[in-house]
């Protein structure tokens, strides 16, 4: 696993330049001070192919996040009209035509496993694309940087502003930035709570003070985390807090496409003057554009690093420079380690998207997706669980007949009340009874989308020749809605009374 080797020089120029500024502020470093300050990163705006992809994903992901709770969906009266709703009080999860009950939480487990496997597969194929393009931390940080740029200008202006003494200009720019950040953070927290409550109602009650306490608390917490994570901590979340970089390292290998500096082509690097020959030198002109645009503050030319989120902004920056220099683009590119080393030694570059680990990941993903989808589609509209009486396990009647008691939990998943016909199969001549009814069948009305318990007694006729334990089942039917559950009938044959 040589992908995450840190072959940076011991004291990179970039770091000293920035940390010197931090030291100058007098907050101390390792020696004498109370703490070690973060070295600020001022990512520069870059234009290009990958930046455009990032813009698009930023708009799409944020759009999905903010708009989803506002989509209406028709359900019968008395049921939520919101397409996506986690109804904790009603203990239901609604997602368009899908409705999940608490006991179906395994479908979420399936979704989580699918997400994990998809992440494994994508990482094995293309590196940490999730981190660079779709992770909420990346998306919101990106959005926050846009705001920062709006108020304080691009990289150089921001650096100047931070170094400048306090002035009215500095105060209003900083205040404006933080207020906008807070507004976005509040919008983030505010959007989150709409997933748990009818959005049009909540947006009104939220301001009148009538919303549930949990709504205010959740909104407050998400406001705080968004503001702190995307505004103040940024790359530190990825580097120090997030477990994914550690886990994802295990999915990468020589054939994964990662943002790579083609060292064999770039070195030896040196500044370049127009008109001079490119003979005997590399294509890298040491302009450091790849470093100044990096939101993680690293130098990709040092090789693959833990901090790199594979976002490709350095690719755009370098391509821009190479085009200006009249050199071929792709000095920094999504490339695999194996392909680079092949090309470096003059061979043809080869890519291996199909290899054992991608096959395994894809296979596992297919199986889990299939199972999850199947369990979702194969669910019946009725729900039946049987709880046998354990004390006593059976009762002998005055005429010698044997009676077992069961509690049925009958669930109706449809949005209309159902009259279920309950029957018991397995013991010939058995009679069903419950307080209020008896016969070969009993029936019960279950209101829409509810579970109703029903105590049922099953009496086997006297002198029925039964084994001690007889396999049996309950069946409930209402039109074409039906469900069944296995159980046993204990006849007490082994324990004569």
């Amino acid at each position: 696993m040589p992908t995450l080797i840190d072959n940076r020089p011991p004291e990179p120029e970039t770091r000293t330049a920035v940390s010197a500024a931090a030291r100058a502020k007098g907050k101390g470093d390792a020696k004498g001070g109370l703490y070690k300050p973060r070295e600020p990163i001022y990512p520069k705006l870059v234009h290009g192919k990958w930046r455009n992809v990032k813009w698009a994903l930023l708009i799409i992901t944020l759009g999905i996040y903010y708009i989803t709770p506002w989509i209406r969906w028709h359900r019968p009266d008395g049921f939520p009209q919101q397409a996506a709703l986690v109804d904790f009080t009603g203990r239901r999860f609604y997602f368009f035509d899908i409705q999940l009950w608490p006991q179906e939480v395994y479908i979420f487990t399936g979704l989580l496993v699918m997400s994990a496997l998809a992440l494994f597969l994508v990482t094995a194929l293309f590196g940490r694309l999730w981190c660079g393009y779709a992770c909420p931390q990346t998306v919101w940080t990106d959005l926050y940087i846009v705001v920062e740029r709006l108020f304080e200008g691009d990289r150089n202006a921001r650096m100047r502003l931070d170094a400048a003494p306090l002035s009215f200009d500095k105060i209003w720019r900083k205040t404006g930035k933080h207020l906008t950040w807070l507004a976005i953070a509040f919008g983030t927290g505010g959007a989150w709570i709409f997933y748990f409550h009818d959005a049009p109602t909540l947006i009104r009650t939220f301001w009148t003070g009538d919303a549930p306490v949990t709504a205010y608390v959740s909104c407050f917490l998400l406001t705080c985390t968004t503001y702190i994570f995307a505004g103040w901590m940024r790359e530190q979340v990825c580097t120090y807090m997030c477990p994914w970089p550690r886990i994802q390292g295990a999915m990468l290998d020589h054939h994964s496409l990662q943002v790579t500096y083609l060292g064999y082509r770039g070195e030896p690097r040196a500044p370049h003057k127009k008109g001079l020959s490119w003979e005997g030198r590399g294509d890298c002109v040491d302009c450091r554009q790849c470093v100044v645009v990096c939101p993680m503050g690293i130098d990709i030319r040092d090789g693959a690093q833990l901090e790199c989120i594979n976002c490709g902004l350095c690719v755009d920056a370098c391509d821009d420079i190479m085009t200006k220099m009249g050199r071929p683009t792709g000095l920094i590119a999504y490339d695999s380690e194996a392909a680079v080393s092949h090309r470096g030694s003059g061979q043809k570059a080869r890519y291996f998207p199909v290899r054992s680990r991608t096959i395994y990941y894809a296979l596992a993903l297919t199986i889990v997706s299939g199972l999850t989808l199947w369990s979702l589609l194969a669910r019946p509209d009725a729900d039946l669980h049987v709880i046998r009486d354990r004390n006593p396990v059976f009762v002998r009647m005055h005429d010698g007949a044997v009676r077992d008691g069961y509690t049925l939990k009958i669930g109706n998943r449809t949005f209309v009340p159902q009259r279920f016909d309950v029957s018991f199969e397995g013991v010939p001549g058995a009679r069903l009874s419950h307080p209020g009814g008896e016969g070969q069948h009993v029936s019960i009305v279950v209101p829409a989308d509810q579970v109703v318990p029903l105590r049922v007694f099953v009496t086997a006729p006297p002198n029925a020749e039964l084994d001690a334990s007889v396999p049996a089942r309950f069946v409930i039917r209402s039109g074409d809605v039906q469900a069944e559950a296995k159980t046993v009938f204990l006849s007490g044959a082994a324990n004569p009374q």
Partner: protein
Amino acid sequence: MAHERETDHATGVETTGHEWDGIKELDNPLPRWWLWVWYACIAFSIGYWVAMPAWPGLHSYTKGMLHQSDRANVGKELSALELQRGQGAAMLRTASLEQIEKDPKLQAYAQQVGQSVFGDNCATCHGIGGTGGKGYANLRDDVWLWGGKLEDIQYTITHGIRTGAEGARMSQMPAFGRDELLKPEQIDDLTEYVVKLSNRPADAGAVARAAPIYETQCVACHGVDGKGNQELGAPNLTDADWLYGSDRASIRGQIYAGNGGVMPTWGGRLSPETIKALAVYIHSNAGGQ
């Protein structure tokens, strides 16, 4: 352990002068967040000390500005619970037994109350599952000495059996042997007769001899056909249910000594609502009658 403070060569940091087995402690600065958390904890502890009961004294303790007291809180919770139960009790009080059993919500509530009260008060004799035992009635089957309708059950619980209280159920089986009302061989014959009543093989001669004795001594309560009488609490001798055992020795013992159990009067001990809930619980658990 304590040594001179010195400067560590590798890091250039001064040591604290502490050393364990040759390992020296560097005097590195604390992380800023750690310091702040520590300061915050100190500030919090002072606030806590002022606001909450904190210090023990000789006779009492510092009460704190918030007057927080766990005992008072429990009291409040208990009275809240009482109030909550009061609502349920009111529902049970106003509804009739049939209404309770028909209404799924009330029924579920009565079941819950009934189950817990049964466990506390009835399970000692009747068993946690209600199946009773020798001398203690099985409340899960369809045999009822005193009637198995909701009202009957409610009445039995309220008044008890053989307690001597007013309204209590009362039946007495004479002790034919102990009180020398019958001769031992007559009791033996009667035992065979009772065995025969429940359709089991019995000595025909003894049965014939016992017939006139049964007619004079037993018919009044147990009936000509031995089917008993619920009005009098006389058990049915022809079915498969035996309160004191179905083997010959048990039957003979019962004729000899005429045992009769006592069930307490619950009327004064449990509230009428609770007894209602209990009756519903027992009735539905036994399949109803």
